[in-house]
């Protein structure tokens, strides 16, 4: 990420960086592996106090950007989450906070935003999967399933994308409401948790709609935000895996020489460096385009998600190969980054999905 611009952003990052180092070092990340929630309430509350949930929320609602560039601020935070493979429902909560801040009614804002800002509540965006909404008097009835939903089993409130009268809409719903079943899923990531959310005749009032009868533009923006965040986070995690590997290349001796002296390995490190620098460049370009509302934002975001998904997954496997057997052990830290990188790769569109999106855009230029 190159989009750090202001001293305020630097200060914000330093505070979060220090906090993550102290409160959530890698042994703590490991300890949370078997934990069904994947983070502690106290940790999330402290994170919220540092501003983790406020960046994409409007100032008049108690949020606010640090640099004046909300997307850039948020990506700077996501970048740190990648570096530290940090726990907590960062993306899930911020996607919903942004949606309610931008398109929610006064009542929805009053209901949802304060809890998220304070770190007392958690939200989840249920996007992947088909749900239909039907009108029944003043109510909407939801039918279908969403999976995987990040933080679905931890969330106090769900924002669900659905089809209503042929249009894309979003609906706020309490996950404990009748007709909603939340099932925790297994997850590859050490601390990020996912759930399946099923709707069988779940009823909400029509006032639960966020962004009206056609929310397709908003949903698209949230998708772009999510995909950009994942590109940024995976790049940051891959940077650490690569740095660990470079250290190893110099320290590890084989046949009387450091691994770093073998041309066959040097050339592979050069390729990894290329993939990494390109991932930094693309995720930065995607974030800038999204921030600016540029016409080519969708293309850049899909290019970033497709590229980071494809190449960083290869990069981390190559890092493991360079380490030899130790790289496959639970004891070594490489898998913590590997897990985060592939979790980011597979959700919100795998590389192949984003290549299809790019082709569709290209078809009409």
């Amino acid at each position, binding site marked *: 990420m190159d989009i750090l611009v202001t001293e305020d952003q630097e200060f914000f990052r330093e505070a979060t960086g220090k906090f993550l180092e102290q409160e959530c070092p890698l042994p703590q990340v490991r300890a949370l592996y078997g934990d069904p929630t994947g983070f502690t309430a106290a940790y999330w509350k402290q994170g919220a106090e540092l501003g983790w949930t406020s960046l994409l929320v409007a100032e008049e609602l108690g949020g606010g950007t640090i640099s004046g560039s909300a997307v850039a601020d948020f990506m700077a935070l996501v970048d740190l989450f990648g570096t530290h493979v940090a726990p907590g429902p960062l993306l899930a909560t911020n996607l919903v906070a942004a949606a309610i801040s931008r398109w929610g009614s006064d009542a929805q804002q009053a209901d949802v935003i304060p809890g998220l800002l304070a770190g007392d509540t958690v939200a989840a965006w249920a996007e992947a999967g088909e749900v239909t909404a039907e009108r029944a008097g003043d109510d909407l009835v939801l039918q279908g399933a969403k999976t995987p939903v990040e933080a679905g089993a931890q969330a106090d409130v769900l924002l669900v994308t659905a089809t209503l009268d042929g249009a894309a809409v979003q609906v706020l719903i309490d996950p404990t409401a009748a007709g909603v079943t939340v099932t925790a899923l297994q997850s590859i990531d050490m601390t990020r948790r996912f759930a399946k959310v099923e709707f069988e005749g779940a009823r909400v009032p029509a006032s639960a709609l966020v962004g009206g009868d056609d929310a397709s533009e908003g949903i698209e923006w949230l998708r772009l935000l999510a995909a950009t965040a994942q590109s940024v986070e995976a790049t940051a995690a891959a940077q650490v895996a690569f740095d660990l590997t*470079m250290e190893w290349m110099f320290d590890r001796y084989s046949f009387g020489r450091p691994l770093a002296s073998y041309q066959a390995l040097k050339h592979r490190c050069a390729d990894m460096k290329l993939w990494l620098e390109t991932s930094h460049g693309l995720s930065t370009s995607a974030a800038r385009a999204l921030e600016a509302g540029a016409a080519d934002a969708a293309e850049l975001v899909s290019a970033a998600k497709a590229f980071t998904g494809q190449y960083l997954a290869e990069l981390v496997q190559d890092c493991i190969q360079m380490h030899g057997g130790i790289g496959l052990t639970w004891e070594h830290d490489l898998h913590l980054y590997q897990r985060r990188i592939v979790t980011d790769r597979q959700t919100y569109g795998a590389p192949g999905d984003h290549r299809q999106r790019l082709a569709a855009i290209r078809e009409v230029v």
Partner: protein
Amino acid sequence: MTESVEEFRARAAAWVRDSLPPQEGGQGMIERRRKMNEEEELAEVQRHRDLQRTLWDGGFAGICFPAAYGGLGLAYEYQLAFNEVADGYQTPSLLQVPTMVPCGAVLLDFANEDILKRHIPAILRGDEIWMQFLSEPSGGSDVAGALTTAVRDGDEWVLNGSKIWTSGAWAADYGLCLARTNWDVPKHRGLTVFVVPMHAEGVELHRIEMTDGSREFCQEFLTDVRIPDTYRVGEVDDGWTVGTRWMFHERNAMGGGSPYVSGQRYSNVVIPEEGDKFVRLARQAGRLDDPRTRDLIGETRMLDLASEALTTRVSEGMLSGRLPDTYASITRLMHAVDAVRKASIAFEIAGAAAVASEPGERFDAGVSWLVRQQGAIGGGTTEMARNNISERVLGMPREYNPFSNVPFRDVPKGPPSA
């Protein structure tokens, strides 16, 4: 009062619209070029010289070249703004690499005032096309192993040897030549750089035919070519200092990040009303609805944007000093990876028509595939780029070289004779 980038962009956009012809269609371009006779080829070069002259007359030539030598002396952002607005229009692409960069850029770094005052404005006017006399038949990547010799004779130097892979040299006016001036010191310490007029007595030129039918590359034989000492660039025996910058400029140009290159940066040109090149190919092949083909089209676009984003990151980083110049090897490598993959994808989409069809874009994809490795060889091979990235960027140990302190005269240049 300095004009802002935005003001410049607006002025350039209006000028480009009024002054430059729009880009032509891509149908059968390779075929067309291959069938050109010499007269048509010369006319094509003249067309590019005229386009350069148009830029000069319009006040848009040499945007990042110093004003003292006829340029505009502006920052890279202005050049990028110009490139953006020139997209879709004809620009003098034949005069960019190697004339503007690396040749022009190397002159700016090392040439004496007389050379600069005489030649940089001539280059910017489109009057002079320059060549690199760098590679030799004895070795491509080992540039510092040059065998072409320059011997001093009073105020002149006498050059003998051969240079190769000079693209477009048949139409060129000058060459920048790396020659050996001292055989009794280690390889890198006995080189000197000279300006060689292409039409000097003793310069003999042969065109090389490539597998795609192109005859752009040339080989020159230098026999007792006399060059005045005033055409020396840099100090005697210090040619590797010049050569190092030379290769930086070359890598930077290959990676698309040189401020001295004007015009279109990327190859996947959208032709008005014909759209994206790969979509066109798929449509012609009747495969536009095939998900696998669409996956490949998506990949080409991903690569375009990846190259562009990398170039932006690296050029911004190098300009601000945040990244060292050695990063140019990374963009150079990306350029090759991108070009090689896209050539394969075009070939894949084109299907059987790539190897057997009437003239057209699909057959061009087949012919282009034959020279797919060109972008991974010319301008420094990808193997050299990977060496440079691992050694100069990542700081990994240099390859073992037993000859670093041996006089070049004593370094083996072939298998031991029986």
